[in-house]
């Protein structure tokens, strides 16, 4: 140290001559001196003046140095106040007793000035080290508390966004560690306008704030596009492009996106980098793995990103289970991972599906896994559509400027059909009509049915009877993708007409395709059980509309919706 630090040194010594001698040595070294004649006085002076360092005679009247040392150490608390014992006892024996009493060093009489100076210096170094450690500890604690508060606020804000969705639906069970978000886990659920349910379980790379920042924009895209009725493909593309744009190269988001249609009893799955989820067929007990077939979101450029999905039929009561890697990667003390195989064993032993989460957590605990803060699980059950009540859409306009007398026609040709889904745009347009808003879910479902029929059966010529069994179902959707990819010609024409009436008005929708048509009478005559998987949703269309008919050998579908004047 270039300049000598001035310390306040307490000297406790009952022998006046020795006390004076020692005081003058210490003062000459540049320090300030306080003195005491016995242990009790030393404690008293210490508590009043808090010197930096204490020189303590071991043998003193009233209170000896050993007791004084203990009291001074107690008063000093966490602060290090070095105590150097002054002793004429034999070195070895003295050292032990003095150190046991809380002393930090020993100086043997008679005093050597040089050694005393060196010891004061060394003790001061220790004292400063301790002070620095304490200061840094407190600083760390403050930072930690600050971070915790910030996370708390951020989580509260994020929960507002995340719970804008339908995670509380009666057919969803989920479990997330409280601060899973700050480990990059993300769980979102929302209804489309047609009443389908979309669920996203995501896992960003990394931990802490970097892992959480991507969650907000991803949630916004998810909710925004789901509410507007965009398809899986468009939503995935947008999410990928957005994350690719905003995240650094080494960050990405593993994700599984599900679309469950309760009307059509099927689930569409896209898994990029998440552990296998499972479709549990309750009737047979079979568990179909939902395997990761894609790179995570945010890695590939939009041109190379692959949105192909798998479509699987579901029966009432079937369940889809997703989980984050927190469960499988949980390690025991020896570094072994819980692993997918142990998870399978839990599945096999599980008696009641509603206790699956608890069974898994128990198995992880038995395995001896350290608890982690990135465990997310979600379980969605296929139920009848009337068991679910999608939240009403919220509109921000007054309805005064509602357009009431118009028609519009579109023709979508091969190249457009390949990559573009016109339905969200049409729905936006129709939502301008206030009288129709109460029926927008039905309108969307019907538009969706008619458009899919026109595209899949009409333009692509797919046979709906393929969908009779599970294997055929998969083949159907594979074939759909292949044919769409190769499509050279064909069209779907959409005609919308809004007519005002005295009391309200009506909407006419006409969908025409370039296909070969179908035998309307025959399909409508099929028994209900057969119609469910392969009946082109004609039943649904008839249920949801005021009138529905087919012309030109099934190539043209016409439906009507009506509304009463608003009070």
């Amino acid at each position: 140290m270039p300049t000598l630090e001035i310390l306040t040194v307490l000297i406790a010594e009952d022998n006046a001559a020795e006390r004076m001698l020692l005081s003058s040595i210490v003062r000459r070294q540049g320090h300030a001196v306080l003195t005491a004649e016995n242990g009790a006085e030393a404690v008293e002076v210490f508590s009043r003046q808090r010197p930096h360092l204490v020189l303590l005679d071991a043998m003193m009247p009233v209170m000896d140095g050993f007791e004084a040392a203990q009291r001074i150490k107690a008063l000093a608390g966490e602060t290090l106040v070095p105590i150097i014992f002054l002793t004429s006892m034999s070195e070895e024996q003295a050292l032990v007793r003095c150190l046991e009493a809380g002393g930090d060093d020993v100086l043997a009489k008679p005093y050597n000035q040089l050694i005393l100076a060196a010891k004061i210096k060394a003790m001061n170094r220790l004292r400063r080290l301790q002070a620095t450690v304490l200061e840094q500890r407190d600083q760390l604690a403050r930072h930690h508390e600050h971070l915790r508060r910030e996370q708390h606020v951020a989580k509260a804000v994020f929960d507002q966004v995340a719970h804008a969705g339908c995670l509380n639906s009666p057919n969803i069970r989920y479990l997330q560690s409280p601060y899973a978000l700050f480990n990059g886990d993300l769980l979102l659920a929302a209804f489309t306008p047609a009443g389908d349910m979309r669920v996203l379980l995501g896992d960003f790379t990394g931990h802490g704030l970097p892992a959480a920042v991507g969650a907000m924009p991803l949630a916004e895209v998810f909710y925004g596009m789901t509410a507007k009725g965009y398809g899986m493909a468009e939503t995935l593309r947008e999410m990928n492009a957005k994350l690719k744009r905003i995240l650094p190269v080494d960050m990405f988001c593993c994700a599984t996106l599900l679309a469950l249609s309760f009307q059509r009893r099927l689930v569409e799955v896209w898994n990029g980098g998440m552990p296998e989820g499972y479709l549990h067929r309750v009737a047979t007990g079979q568990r179909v793995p939902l395997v990761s077939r894609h790179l995570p979101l945010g890695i590939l450029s939009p041109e190379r990103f692959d949105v192909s999905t798998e479509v699987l039929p579901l029966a009432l009561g079937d369940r889809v289970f997703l989980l984050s890697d927190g469960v499988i990667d949980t390690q025991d003390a020896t570094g072994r991972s819980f692993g997918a195989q142990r998870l399978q064993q839990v599945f096999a032993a599980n008696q009641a599906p509603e206790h699956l989460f608890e069974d898994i957590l128990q198995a992880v605990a038995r395995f001896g896994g350290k608890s982690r803060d990135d465990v997310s699980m979600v379980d969605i059950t296929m139920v009848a559509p009337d068991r679910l009540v999608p939240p009403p859409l919220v509109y921000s306009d007054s309805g005064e400027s509602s357009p009431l007398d118009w028609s519009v026609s579109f023709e979508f040709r091969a190249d457009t059909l390949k990559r573009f889904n016109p339905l969200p745009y049409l729905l936006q347009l129709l939502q301008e009509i206030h009288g129709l808003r109460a029926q927008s879910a039905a309108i969307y479902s019907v538009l969706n049915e008619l458009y899919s029929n026109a595209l899949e059966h009409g333009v692509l010529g797919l046979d709906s009877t393929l969908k009779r069994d599970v294997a055929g179902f998969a083949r159907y959707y594979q074939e759909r993708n292949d044919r769409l990819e190769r499509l050279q010609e064909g069209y779907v024409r959409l005609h919308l007409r809004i007519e005002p009436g005295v009391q309200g008005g009506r909407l006419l929708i006409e969908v025409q395709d370039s296909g070969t048509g179908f035998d309307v009478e025959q399909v409508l005559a099929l028994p209900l059980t057969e119609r469910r998987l392969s009946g082109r949703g004609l039943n649904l269309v008839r249920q949801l509309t005021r009138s529905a008919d087919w012309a030109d050998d099934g190539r043209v579908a016409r439906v009507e919706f009506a509304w009463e004047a608003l009070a």
Partner: protein
Amino acid sequence: MAVVTDVSPDGRLTIAIKGRFDFGKHQEFRSAYERPGQKPESITIDLKETTYIDSSALGMLLLMRDHAGGENADIRVINSSSDVRKILAISNFDQLFDIS
């Protein structure tokens, strides 16, 4: 050394990683391919002695790929154990890297 590099006469850079391949290797791994004055376009990552790989290591591989020319980079990942292979497979990184 947990990250060992070697350059073959034809200019191919080989990086071998020992033990856990996670964020702890970030600096070492980065300096293995970011060499002043050199920009290797063909890189082999040897995972023969890698016991574990996590998602931040996947991120590090993406950074390296970006550095080596992105879509045009020629990167081979060799000798991965079955556990490591599993992680790479779930993430479908074989769509970006030549994994054997």
